[in-house]
């Protein structure tokens, strides 16, 4: 389905990542947001509050992130595409409702513009330290999808992708930005509406008497019912059966929770996005994401100038993690270097997938600024010694 032109600001713009993200949401069809201000994410919803009344939708600033993260889910069930934005401390508050979205298979988008942490940390400075939290932050076993833009253009594009994935797989999808990507201003090209593919909500075609709210299709994802049309849907966070009724037995738990996991993992091939360069003969591969990948690009060029065969693998989908691809790289390269704006988070996934087949060298950074290319180059040189 093509995007609704009302939400598409076609043209060539000079926007920062936060603003581009808002335009991506509008282009994807988002017509509801419930937000709470937190630096460095606030501009996303400030722009949405200004834009959406002239597009046709609602923004409400809620009293806290606990409310913001569930109000958008009420709006989703009411029929809207909805999202919220936040940063570290707010993200922590949203964790219970992220689990609720996963358990109730509510399609929705959360944007985390990461900043220094833990706790209040560095409100105006970047980090990439919520990467494990986005996957494991809520209690219990569940899968999510997380995308990492590295430019304002990607903030636009990947926000649309996030909405599309959320409708396709009925799960919460995360756009993991960081303060630099959010606040850097670059050219953002927004095409015509008919050039933008949006995934429509997969409403059931069955009548209320025939429809079971949580009966999965072949791809393990159930169709959605329309509220207010006599389906008498019951949605609960309790472990439930195909009718949506609580069924708190080990048998049902196994069936439900494994399906929630498998609907993402078994469809991973259609979800995974990455950028690769010069992998075939690479001695060293630099695995990075977000703003760090732009610094890494420079470091890779500097290393190549010194004659080192360095390949690049940029995670665009961080979760589900592209473990098969990393395993393949680990089998061929001598070493993988993983710079991140944290003390070692996604590198753990790289180590796990590499399974000892090659050296994995993190380049950690406590946050507050970006790496210098020299930091990453130093690590590349060390592993090729």
């Amino acid at each position, binding site marked *: 389905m093509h995007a609704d032109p009302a939400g598409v600001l076609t043209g060539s713009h000079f926007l920062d990542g936060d603003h581009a993200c808002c335009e991506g949401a509008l282009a994807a069809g988002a017509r509801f947001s419930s937000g709470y201000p937190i630096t460095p994410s606030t501009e996303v919803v400030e722009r949405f509050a200004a834009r959406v009344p002239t597009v046709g939708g609602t923004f409400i600033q809620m009293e806290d992130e606990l409310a913001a993260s569930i109000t958008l889910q009420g709006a989703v069930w009411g029929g809207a595409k909805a999202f919220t934005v936040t940063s570290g401390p707010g993200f922590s508050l949203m964790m219970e409702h992220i689990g609720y979205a996963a358990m109730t298979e509510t399609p929705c988008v959360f944007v985390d513009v990461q900043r220094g942490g833990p706790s209040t940390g560095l409100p105006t400075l970047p980090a990439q330290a919520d990467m494990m939290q986005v996957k494991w932050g809520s209690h219990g076993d569940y899968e999510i999808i997380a995308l990492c833009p590295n430019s304002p253009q990607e903030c636009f594009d990947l926000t649309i992708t996030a909405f599309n994935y959320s409708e396709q797989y009925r799960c919460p999808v995360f756009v993991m930005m960081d303060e630099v990507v959010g606040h850097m201003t670059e050219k953002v090209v927004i095409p015509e509406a008919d050039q933008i593919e949006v995934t429509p909500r997969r409403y059931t075609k069955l009548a209320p008497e025939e429809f079971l709210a949580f009966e999965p299709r072949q791809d393990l994802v159930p169709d959605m019912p329309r509220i207010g049309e006599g389906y008498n849907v019951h949605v609960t966070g*309790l472990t439930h059966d195909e009718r949506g009724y*609580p*069924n*708190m*037995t080990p048998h049902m738990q196994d069936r439900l929770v494994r399906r929630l996991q498998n609907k993402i993992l078994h469809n991973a091939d259609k979800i995974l996005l990455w950028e690769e360069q010069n992998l075939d003969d690479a001695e060293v591969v630099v695995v990075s994401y977000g703003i760090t990948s732009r610094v890494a690009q420079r470091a890779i060029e500097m290393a190549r100038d010194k004659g080192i065969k360095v390949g690049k693998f940029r995670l665009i989908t961080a979760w589900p993690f592209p473990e098969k691809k990393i395993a393949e790289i680990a089998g061929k390269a001598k070493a993988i270097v993983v710079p991140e704006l944290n003390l070692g988070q996604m590198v753990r996934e790289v180590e796990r997938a590499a399974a000892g087949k090659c050296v994995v060298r993190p380049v950690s950074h406590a946050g507050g600024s970006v790496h210098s290319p020299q930091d990453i180059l130093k690590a590349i040189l060390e592993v090729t010694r």
Partner: protein
Amino acid sequence: MAKGSVQIVVERCKACGFCVEFCPTKALALSSAFNAKGYHPPYLIQPEKCSGCDLCGMYCPDFAIFGYKQGAAAKAAAAGAKPAEAPAADGKEEATDAR
């Protein structure tokens, strides 16, 4: 003939006693019979006193009793109303849970 009567869904009753206490004509009492859970459901001890006011139905926390006026029953029969189905007992034991 009494002005009204009651219909009791025996398996739902938990013998709380609200219907017996608040029946304005004291037509109900708990029986010595018991259901699968061991509760004594009510019965019309003075059926001629039942007015069909359905106050018992409004009080019942378990949806186990309701009152109807005999005239209404006859009207319903004439109009071919759908019979009230004996509700299937929910056989699945819900495991204990907190919250």
